[in-house]
């Protein structure tokens, strides 16, 4: 919650406190430190004078966490990046749950051929290591704009990582959903509903779906936590969010090249990811306890 609020405040921070645009190169920007204007990108003057180093953390309102290789305010980018990270993780979670629910329910409820085909497909994608699948999809999609129905998705759009991250975990959710649907479909109360002459689609809608939904809800925070890490990994490998847009993963990637001179550019997003994921996992545990009395007993 705190993180959401903090990231929503990003524009306020960027405009009114830091006074910088986190998406604009600030290569020749200067800030005042102790009253003296100091360039954000500091040209090395000693020795051979090779290299330009961005300013380090000032712990003041401007460049609180220092600048990145483009002279942009890392703190401001952290907030915007957090927005994107959360947006991507959230949206991909929804997509994943949606697709997994459809596939899982289709496979689990219809059985027979449909189940056979879908289950085998799931198994096949399962055997494809997640990161490799995500990386290859990213490379394909980033290189190409494509039309999805009436929507043109441009390659730099956030929709690309959202789709990719959303899709790669579908088998991992669809499989348990399918199992759950099959279990519910065999359960006494569905039997009873059939015995009462309730129509098939109504059984699905009124009896199966509401009971699968807890499973889906329990998955949500865990999946979102996973997606945040996946997003950062993909961005770290530069196949995720595209510049100049930011996410915690891209900031980490920027920070990688400054690791030895400006470690805060890496530390900050890493810590942010850790805290967010931690909170999501905790929330997931709580949710599971609330919704699933069986495991609550175990705690």
């Amino acid at each position, binding site marked *: 919650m705190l993180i959401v609020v903090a990231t929503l405040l990003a524009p306020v921070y960027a405009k009114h406190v830091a006074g910088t645009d986190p998406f604009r190169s600030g*290569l020749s920007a200067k800030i005042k430190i102790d009253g003296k204007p100091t360039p954000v990108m500091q040209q090395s003057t000693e020795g051979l*004078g*090779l*290299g330009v180093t961005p300013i380090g953390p000032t712990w003041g309102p401007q460049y609180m966490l220092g600048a990145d290789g*483009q002279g942009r305010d890392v703190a401001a980018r952290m907030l915007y990046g957090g927005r994107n990270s959360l947006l991507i993780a959230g949206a991909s979670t929804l997509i994943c749950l949606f697709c997994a629910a459809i596939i899982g329910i289709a496979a689990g409820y219809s059985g027979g051929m449909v189940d056979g085909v879908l289950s085998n497909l799931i198994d096949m994608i399962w055997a494809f290591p997640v990161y490799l699948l995500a990386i290859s999809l990213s490379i394909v999609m980033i290189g190409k704009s494509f039309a999805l129905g009436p929507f043109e998705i441009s390659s730099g759009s956030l929709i690309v990582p959202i789709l990719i991250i959303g899709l790669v975990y579908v088998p991992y959710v669809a499989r348990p959903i399918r199992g759950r649907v099959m279990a519910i479909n065999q359960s006494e109360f569905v039997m009873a509903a059939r015995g009462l002459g309730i129509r098939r689609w109504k059984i699905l809608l009124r009896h199966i779906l509401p009971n699968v939904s807890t499973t889906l809800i329990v998955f949500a925070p865990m999946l979102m936590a996973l997606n945040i890490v996946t997003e950062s990994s993909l961005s770290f490998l530069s196949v995720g969010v595209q*510049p*100049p847009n930011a996410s915690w993963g891209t900031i980490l990637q920027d920070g990688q090249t*400054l690791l030895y*001179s400006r470690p805060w550019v890496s530390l900050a997003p890493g810590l942010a990811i850790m805290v967010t994921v931690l909170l999501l996992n905790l929330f997931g545990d709580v949710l599971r306890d609330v919704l699933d009395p069986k495991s609550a007993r175990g705690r």
Partner: protein
Amino acid sequence: MCETRSLMTRLRGHILCGAAALALGTAFQPAFADDGHYGGTLKLLGVSSEGTLDPQINYTARYWPLFIWTHDGLMAFKKVNGPESAEVVPDLAEDMPVLSNDGKTYTFKLRQGIKFSNGKDLTVDDVVASFQRIFKISSPTSGSFYNGIVGADKCLAEAATCTLEGGIVADAATNTITINLVAPDAEFLYKLAVPHASIVPADTVMKDAGNEPIPGTGSYMFESYDPNASLIMVRNPHFQEWSKEAQPKGYVDRIEYTFGGTEEAAVNAILNGQADWMYEPVPTDRLAELSVSNPDQLRVSPLVAWWYAPMNVNIAPFNSLEARQALNYAVDRDALVSIFGGPALATPVCTILPPDMPGHVDRCDYTADPGELWSAPDMDKALALVEASGTKGQKVTVVTDDSVTSRGVGTYLQTVLSDLGYDATVQSISGDIQFTYIQNTNNNVQISVTQWYQDYPAPSNFLNVLFGCDSFTPGSDSSVNMSGICDKGLDDRMKAAMVLGSTDPEAALKEWGDIDYDMMKLAPAVPMFTPKDVDLISTRVGNYEFTSQFHWLVGTAWVQ
């Protein structure tokens, strides 16, 4: 030369030094005659290997500097330090060739008594077979460097039966080789001096030799090659020095090139004296520290290259000359230089021909204060031009590769384009894909960030290759004229200049300079800066020599 992406990788995120001359100065004394320096093992590091060991196929900046020590062509670039290294000298040929037939026929006399590393004698048959092999194995440059040889067209069409009938004529009795060209080519000798024209034994397999070393005539030979582990070079036991400037006897006895690891690890290893040199550029964030702590281990050298942003003149908004010029006015080269590592590592440029390229003239129109050199951006003029072009508000996507510097440049360009009133975004693609991606017109790339390094020191290598009509093939991944510009007048002038080069090089160079200036009036690209090369070497390496052609000369360095 050796322009492959690896070269770009090598230069990714670089550096450079105002104190270059100073650093170079210390390494200068060509202390030959000191036999005490012979021997030892040179240890090189690379993050990854780069493919086949076939000198006629491999087109990478990583291996070309090695092939010049294991193989020879009829000609060679001088293996000496500094600008002189751009000169071609006879290598396997005894002398410079005799030109006849209006510059279309070259006659070489082959040196006698040279043996391949497998002990066989070098004969004219080997030379003929080697040239046929270029085509039979579809060498990457077979169609661009050697297509001027008579019979090459047939060979390109039907590689398997290539004979180069009438193109290459050998006379074993007189030990001469005659090469007939379709038209005069002022750059032909350069083309004979690059590794693709290496002379290999006639019985070499007529396909990519892969990881199997092919015997050569150089001072070293490949002993073993495992692309995942290492490449070992040892002395060629049959080598006798015949020309110190073409193929000197190297100092070290053994060269071990180890693959794997990371740049950071390589830096540490060199600092700890566990290795002598690394192929990859020193990570930027270490440079500032190293330039203070270990300045005597850094070598900064100028390169003949440029970073530029080609603009597609065939689609909006850069089909408008004003729009292209506006961007040229608006880009702050100083900011770009600072992305690359500061003024010690890069110099702003305004022209297509880099400063060290023959024919280059200091002229700059697109600056606040037009004159010889770039001074500052002129935003007012740029804004006015955009207004006049009527392209304001259009969408522009800058396509960069995913290296740190390239993305930095792209992001900066996006900022400038936004300032000019465009709706700009950046798209960064894996470097290896990006280079072909931006060439293909099907991808509708509007503007991209890329680099070009010389293959050999000829202006056509920049102007004609990058902006000539022949380099533009719509719908192909190989269409290096990324701007898609084809100006009939300028194209004819370039063709004429190339012909002129074979008779009056001086006049030709002047004409190239004018073409450069006139081409920039059309602004098919934004010239950004010319980068410099930084090498980090161990403290025991002596006699560091740098050539613009093949960069560090590994063979003339010593370790003891």
